[in-house]
């Protein structure tokens, strides 16, 4: 255990200085990144605040136009494009769950319990989560790219110059559309996930349809749907706001737009899973 002080007094001051500098640089860039992180989170939260404020104003003040046409357009865009992928992925997830669970449950002689576990896992967790992850790639990335391109081509500036608030005009429709559509998509995901689990159990594991659906019906309560779909809605809001913030803060031309797009997907997935953990903890604590 030779300890350093000798080096600092006589030994190798250059090496020591380099080491200190390296630590300093690492700490410096860590501070930079922390500052950046706090700025992004703060900015996204503030943007969400104003989007919510405009939503409320739009609902209650007749003079504030929210643009129904634009909302429908965004809903179509968010929903229609991702529906097939969500269904495909969720069918696989149901099927994978059934196959993974089969050996263990079989060893307990409880193979028909597959239906219960698949139902709970899909409806409470994997339906909303997988839908959100698919949507962060579809809706999140395309919203960030679109808004970023609008910043670059001075469209946002032009909106402001025409006394049109970009948050009301661009962000609120995307926020509402993503939040509403993800709930619809999560319902579809739930159904398809359970169907995937059912088909696998029926065709590969020999569980009869009657047994399977009876167990599924017995396992699920309304609360499972409510908690699952609530999470889905929040995930949708997160994706939309992270994407809008990334788009609105784009700098540096086409490269900047590209960076905003990729960073949106990464940030969304981290935020979604983090938020999922928070929700799960809360639901667990309250026994929901």
């Amino acid at each position, binding site marked *: 255990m030779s300890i350093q002080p000798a080096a600092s007094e006589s030994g190798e001051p250059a090496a020591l200085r380099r080491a200190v500098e390296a630590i300093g640089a690492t700490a410096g860039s860590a501070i930079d990144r922390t500052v950046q992180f706090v700025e992004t989170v703060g900015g996204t939260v503030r943007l969400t605040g104003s989007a919510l404020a405009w939503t409320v104003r739009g609902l209650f003040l007749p003079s504030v*136009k929210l643009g129904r046409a634009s909302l429908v357009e965004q809903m179509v865009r968010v929903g229609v494009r991702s529906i097939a992928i969500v269904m495909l992925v969720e069918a696989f997830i149901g099927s994978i769950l059934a196959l993974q669970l089969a050996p263990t449950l079989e060893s307990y002689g409880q193979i028909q319990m597959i239906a219960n576990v698949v139902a709970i896992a899909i409806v409470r967790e994997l339906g909303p989560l997988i839908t959100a992850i698919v949507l962060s790639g579809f809706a999140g990335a395309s919203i960030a790219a679109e808004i970023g*391109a*609008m910043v670059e*081509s*001075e*469209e946002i*500036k*032009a*909106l*402001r*110059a*025409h*006394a*049109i*608030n970009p948050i009301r*005009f661009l962000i609120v429709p995307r926020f509402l559309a993503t939040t509403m559509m993800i709930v619809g998509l999560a319902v579809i995901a739930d159904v398809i996930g359970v169907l995937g689990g059912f088909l696998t159990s029926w065709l590969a594991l020999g569980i009869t349809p009657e047994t399977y659906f009876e167990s599924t019906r017995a396992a699920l309560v309304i609360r499972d749907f409510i908690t699952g779909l609530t999470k889905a809605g929040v995930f949708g809001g997160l994706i939309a706001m992270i994407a809008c913030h990334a788009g609105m803060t784009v700098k540096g031309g086409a490269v900047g737009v590209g960076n905003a797009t990729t960073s949106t997907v990464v940030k969304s997935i981290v935020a979604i899973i983090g938020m999922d953990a928070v929700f799960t903890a809360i639901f667990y604590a309250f026994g929901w």
Partner: protein
Amino acid sequence: MASADAVISIRDLRKSFPTADGGRITVLHSVTFDVMRGETLVIMGGSGCGKSTLLNCLIGELPIDEGAILYRTNEMEEAVDVTGLREREFNNIRRRMGILFQSGALFNSMTLAENVALPLREHSYVEESIIDIVVTLKLQQVKMLAHRDKMPTQLSGGQKKRAGLARATALDPEILFYDEPSAGLDPVTSTAIDELIMDLSSKLQVTSVVVTHEMDSAFRIADRMVMLDKGRVLRIGPRSDFESIRDADPASLSTADDRLINQFLNGYSDGPLTDAEGMSEFEKLIIGTALSEDRTTA
């Protein structure tokens, strides 16, 4: 205070930006001038002298460090300082402005007709049939009616500017701002845009503020001109003042500022603008190329 017939009065405006090394660089130093009702004022200056920054400050896109920007539109009893004004109050003034951005800044997801209709749909409660008439009128005014159902990406640069101008005039503004209206256009298209600017300014009786580094265009459209250099106002005056400085022999001009203006207006490569004392060979080389590039694009 603001003079009686000024629509915009700029007083001691200072604007700086943060630099990468943590300091600040001042881009506009104590800029002061008035824009008079009904005139076409051209703001000139070399690339990087702060023209766009000034324009962005005027339209409320950038906050300013010091000074005041006063607006007095027709319905206003007295001039209002817009610095620090709340967004909603500034929007009342913005509705009286139209801005033609350098790229046209059309909304790429909408057709031309929808672009022009947007300010009307957002700020008035008129019926669709009336909006349609106004859109037709505005597009006709800029000779773009044939393209009303095209998307912006299907248009050339000059067409985008025309369409942008139709949108900027949709609400019959009192003040029109133009950012480099002829930049990136061929001479014929650029002349056509200049004619459109003059046409609109006489037909609609608007006050026009035009930012440009294109001298032919500036002398065609200006009633008065402002010369900016390194963020300062070198001179403001009627077009004839600038014409006489342009046509003078540099040696006969008494002040350094006038010689600099003379050099800029004529595009000479030798003169106070490009005096390279104290520069390294490398800097001379870089600046020399930058200046000659400037002139070819202008």
